[in-house]
């Protein structure tokens, strides 16, 4: 029994690895539409969702798929220094190494210069956590995308949709927006079961009854990150109970609601 809980616990570590990516119905629809919009002649694509809805996970999957067939770069953590940002772009897109500072005008000169030379397929830059870029740099990114020499997929975590619409640099552009949302109860069940299955934790898969999943959903609102945290703690708690020989007091053929709620108290999802 010990192994089951320990293995299941590690399934819910909060790490981004495209190998752990789980195909969920709604997410695959979004995935397809994102792939479609990447092939359209759009300059900017806006991808957003609340924290913990799986954007970074999604991007890592998208990146790994796309790079088989086209030029694509993923900037997982924002490059906040402007000069550094242009230098990285120059290096990635044009294979130009620049040791000294590189400002916007210089960078645009490189872009213009290259424009005449070749007409290869437009490379894609995926920016995660783009809400961290300054307004100023965002505006420059927009100007770079106007040259159509590079396409940007901008990922924001924002809670209010209206907020993004209000943002000046998105207002005047022809852009596509795609939103990732929290899971429904059914999706969450799929998520938990598939995740356990992928790690060969077949015994614990069946412990998640609809009732238990519904309780988890009501606590986490279907947020993947919160669910991970909760389930990690839950299996941790089961391990401890087992060590203290208290598991016999609990039924182990299904996850007990009490254990879920205790984990929620421990992780702070429930405030006592």
């Amino acid at each position: 029994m010990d192994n089951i809980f320990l293995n299941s616990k590690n399934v819910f570590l909060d790490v981004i690895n495209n190998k752990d990516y789980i195909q969920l119905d709604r997410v695959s629809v979004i995935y397809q539409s994102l792939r479609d919009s990447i092939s359209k002649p759009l300059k900017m694509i806006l991808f957003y969702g609340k924290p913990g809805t799986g954007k970074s996970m999604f991007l890592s999957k998208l990146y790994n798929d796309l790079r088989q067939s086209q030029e694509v770069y993923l900037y997982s953590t924002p490059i906040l220094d402007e000069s550094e940002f242009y230098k990285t772009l120059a290096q990635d897109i044009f294979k130009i190494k620049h040791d000294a500072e590189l400002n916007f005008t210089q960078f645009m000169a490189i872009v213009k210069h290259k424009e005449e030379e070749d007409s290869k397929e437009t490379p894609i830059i995926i920016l995660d956590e783009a809400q961290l870029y300054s307004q100023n740099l965002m505006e420059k990114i927009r100007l770079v995308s106007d040259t159509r020499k590079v396409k940007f997929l901008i990922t924001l975590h924002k809670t209010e949709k209206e907020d993004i619409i209000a943002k000046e640099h998105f207002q005047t552009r022809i852009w596509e927006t795609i939103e990732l949302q929290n899971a429904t109860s059914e999706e969450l069940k799929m998520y938990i079961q598939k995740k356990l299955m992928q790690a060969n934790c077949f015994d614990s898969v069946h412990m998640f009854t609809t009732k238990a999943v519904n309780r988890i959903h009501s606590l986490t609102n279907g947020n993947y990150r919160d669910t991970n945290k909760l389930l990690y703690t839950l299996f941790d708690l089961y391990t401890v109970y087992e060590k203290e020989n208290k598991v016999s007091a609990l039924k182990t053929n299904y996850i007990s609601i009490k254990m879920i709620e205790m984990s929620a108290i421990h992780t702070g999802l429930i405030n006592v």
Partner: protein
Amino acid sequence: MFNTTELEKQWLQYKIKSYIPYLIISLSLLIIILIVYFFKFDMEKSSTNIQTSIIKSKPNPKKEIVQIKPSPHILVEDNKKVQLLPSLDFMKKMQNASQLHRPTVKSIQRPHISDIRPKEETKHAKRKKIIQDNIEELPQESKKDIDKTINIERKNTQKDIYDIIKRFKKNNNPVLSLFIAKKYYELGNYKQAYNYALITNEINKDIDDSWIIFTKSLVKLGNKDKALDILKQYIEHSHSNSAKILRKEIQSGKFK
């Protein structure tokens, strides 16, 4: 890592806390039932009182009738005071609340109309004063009629829009959001027209009409330059004829 006993204690606390609202509800329900039951019992008691007094009175009917008559009166009145008053209060409150509610609804809708109405009304009034003072009362009634009909139309279109917004939220169909944008545009709410056209563009960016409404609203909102900028890009992208026509109209100042 875990202090399981402490955690269990906290969990128990949490459970108890979460049951408190149910406890309060069921307790108050119990109290209400008890009160109702108590008064019913009281009523029954008083009616048996009367009966017994009637039975007693049989040997001396004439006198007793006079005696009995006042007593049920008092009894009933007493009962009324205790039992019925609070419920009457409650009814009054309900009525008050609904009365309070109605005017606010109206007052929300009025301002919309007042944007259009006042000018016309003053015109009306002036004309009337010049012609004849006597007739003044008649047109006022007809004015009210107009007011009413406009009010009703407004309500309908507003309600229409809200219904469609509700539906749109469910199925995210761009046809619906475009309809909403158009309706808002017709009603002169250009800000909302802009928003919904934008939302429509998000879902499907190849709908001509949506871009047209979007840029028209922008012009109405005083952003002519931005509108032209967007139209330019859209025409580049789509070669839309209606967009080209609109651009010409905006540039020449025909549409403003």
